[in-house]
């Protein structure tokens, strides 16, 4: 059975052209990040600081959660708590029903993807419109986002043009990004104006002031927060930062790491409901507290969802986000996967451990070391594979056996180079030729040419 990311890559990013386009678009973000980070003289110190603030915040999360709740409540917000995805969906659904809401304008939130909020609300008869352009595209395509910052990065302008033609009535063959964006703006504007509630994600929550920090480039979250009277903000408990003073550190890193912008177009610090409105904040655990208790893997909770590790990851760029099971693709998704969802156990193997993710992470998550650690603990070889590993380990620890195995390999090697059903080298042969066997091993030639070894 092939690895889910392998079969996903074949399914979702099938043609050489699609792979090239996806790779080029995503790598462009990496290059923008390099340029933007390179302009900041205190970049490395800033990353150290951000990592340290997050590490402290997570290690005192109980205090900061209570402080945040107190401050947000004082400011007039209503704070809800949800242990898991089901509780989260029920909380939001109930709130909307209590307010007789039928139409919701939603802005980007990976948490709602993680918890399956949209399908839940739709089942309850509530119309949810994703308002981030990329999110809207994937919503209309009835597919999940393939990137945490650029949800429709796997789609070509032709595909989007065809989609908008069908769903928004743009002229057939219209593929100009500006005109397509205008069409989406007009379409979504009417939906904003008729929405009865806005649901937003949260980038940071400040314990000291009870504030929510919501970052977008499009301004869609701000429209969602300012037009309908009801605002529901959803956040994982790991989003808390201790002080307002910590915020600039993260804001200076976030957009530069994500898209190479010095800051996103809109960064709103929202404290309490707006006059005449209601603000409900839902704090979600859904596995985070368990990860918090796992000292070896806690660092993954520092993530600020900038996407830099996806952009630099050569596996992600060649596989596409949809290849990854679970809500978050790429290195951080593969680090969170084993802890957060049942399909994630094999994800740590979808990496060459090249380490580029670790190098770009602005909050110093040791991503590739985490992947290796999960392989060690979470998904060691099982069954036949485990037996083979034990056998190979036994052989490798005994030079004479090792040499006999080498001699045997030399005999069967020509057969291994041919593709046939059940060939143990099929994984190698699936993509490449097996080289000719050189004949004698190094140790044999050394003994022959230089006399016996030591």
């Amino acid at each position, binding site marked *: 059975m092939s690895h889910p990311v392998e079969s996903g890559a074949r399914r979702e990013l099938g043609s050489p052209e699609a792979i090239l386009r996806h790779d080029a678009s995503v790598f462009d973000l990496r290059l923008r990040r390099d340029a933007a980070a390179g302009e900041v003289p*205190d970049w490395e110190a800033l990353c150290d600081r951000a990592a340290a*603030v997050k590490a402290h915040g*997570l*290690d005192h999360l*109980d205090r900061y959660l209570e402080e945040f709740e107190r401050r947000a409540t004082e400011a007039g917000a209503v704070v809800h708590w949800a242990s898991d995805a089901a509780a989260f969906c029920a909380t939001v659904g109930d709130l909307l029903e209590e307010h007789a809401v039928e139409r919701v304008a939603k802005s980007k939130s990976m948490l709602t993807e993680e918890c399956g909020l949209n399908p839940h609300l739709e089942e309850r008869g509530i119309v949810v419109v994703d308002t981030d352009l990329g999110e809207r595209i994937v919503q209309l395509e009835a597919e999940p986002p393939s990137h945490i910052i650029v949800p429709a990065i796997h789609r070509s302008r032709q595909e989007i043009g065809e989609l908008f033609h069908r769903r928004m009535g743009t002229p057939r063959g219209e593929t100009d990004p500006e005109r397509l964006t205008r069409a989406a703006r007009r379409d979504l504007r009417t939906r904003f104006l008729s929405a009865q509630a806005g649901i937003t994600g949260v980038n940071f929550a400040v314990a000291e002031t009870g504030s929510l920090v919501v970052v977008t480039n499009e301004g869609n979250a701000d429209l969602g*927060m*300012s037009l309908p009277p009801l605002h529901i903000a959803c956040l994982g408990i790991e989003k808390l930062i201790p002080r307002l003073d910590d915020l600039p*550190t993260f804001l200076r890193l976030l957009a530069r790491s994500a898209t190479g912008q010095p800051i996103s177009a809109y*960064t709103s610090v929202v404290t309490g409901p707006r006059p005449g409105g209601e603000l409900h904040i839902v704090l979600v655990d859904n596995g985070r507290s368990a990860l918090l208790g796992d000292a070896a893997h806690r660092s993954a909770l520092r993530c600020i969802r900038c996407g830099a590790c996806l952009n630099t990851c050569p596996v992600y760029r060649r596989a596409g986000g949809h290849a990854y099971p679970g809500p978050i693709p790429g290195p951080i998704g593969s680090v969170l996967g084993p802890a957060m969802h049942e399909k994630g156990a094999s994800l740590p193997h979808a990496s060459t451990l090249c380490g580029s993710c670790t190098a770009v992470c602005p909050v110093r998550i040791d991503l590739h070391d985490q992947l290796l650690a999960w392989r060690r603990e979470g998904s060691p070889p099982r069954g036949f594979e485990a037996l083979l590993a034990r056998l190979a380990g036994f052989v490798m620890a005994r030079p004479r056996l090792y040499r006999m195995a080498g001699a045997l390999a030399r005999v069967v090697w020509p057969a291994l180079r041919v593709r046939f059903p059940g060939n143990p080298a099929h994984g190698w042969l699936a993509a490449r030729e097996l080289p000719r066997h050189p004949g004698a091993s190094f140790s044999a030639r050394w003994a022959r040419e230089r006399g016996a070894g030591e």
Partner: protein
Amino acid sequence: MSDREAILQRVRGAVRHEVDHPGAHPAPSLAGGFERFATRLRGVGGEAHGPVPSWQVGEVVTGVVNLRAEGGRVFAAESASEVLGPGVWVVPPADLAPIGFEDVAVAILRGTIGVAENGAVALEGRHAPQRSLPFLCRHLILLLPSTGIHPDLHSAQAALPADALDHHHLTWISGPSKTADIEQTLVYGAHGPLTLDLIAYTPA
């Protein structure tokens, strides 16, 4: 047990209270000033004008409005009209519903602090009680005292008044609304304003 108690109990069991807060990040020594700010703002798709003496702000804004409005409605938030001085500025009616700004062509608002490293301007809730106005309008004009420009975001945030968060929202605005969700092609005006003009003025 409520979800609240359950979560807090699990979190309490998971934390150690051992890792200290590292303290505030020291503000870097970056170049400040209007020129650097203006360059940055252009880089994020905005346009910076000035700095002009405060008595000239109305005139400069009128020029920008004439360029952008195309006969549409123009609103100047009350806080902005104080800076603009006498003129024909229309202040939005207090009882207008948030969706009432839907067809506004140009909105003029007052910012307090600018950030040279990223072209962002702080729009405080007290100066923008009509929260939807700067997002529904097609063109946004921000007024900013040139003395309010700081080199980096740390010093900029520190320069905000102590009660800056007391009026529901504080928004850092850096250029017009934008998206690159279709094949990484940058398009301005995804949802919010298509343009952003910033008029810097030297306070009287």
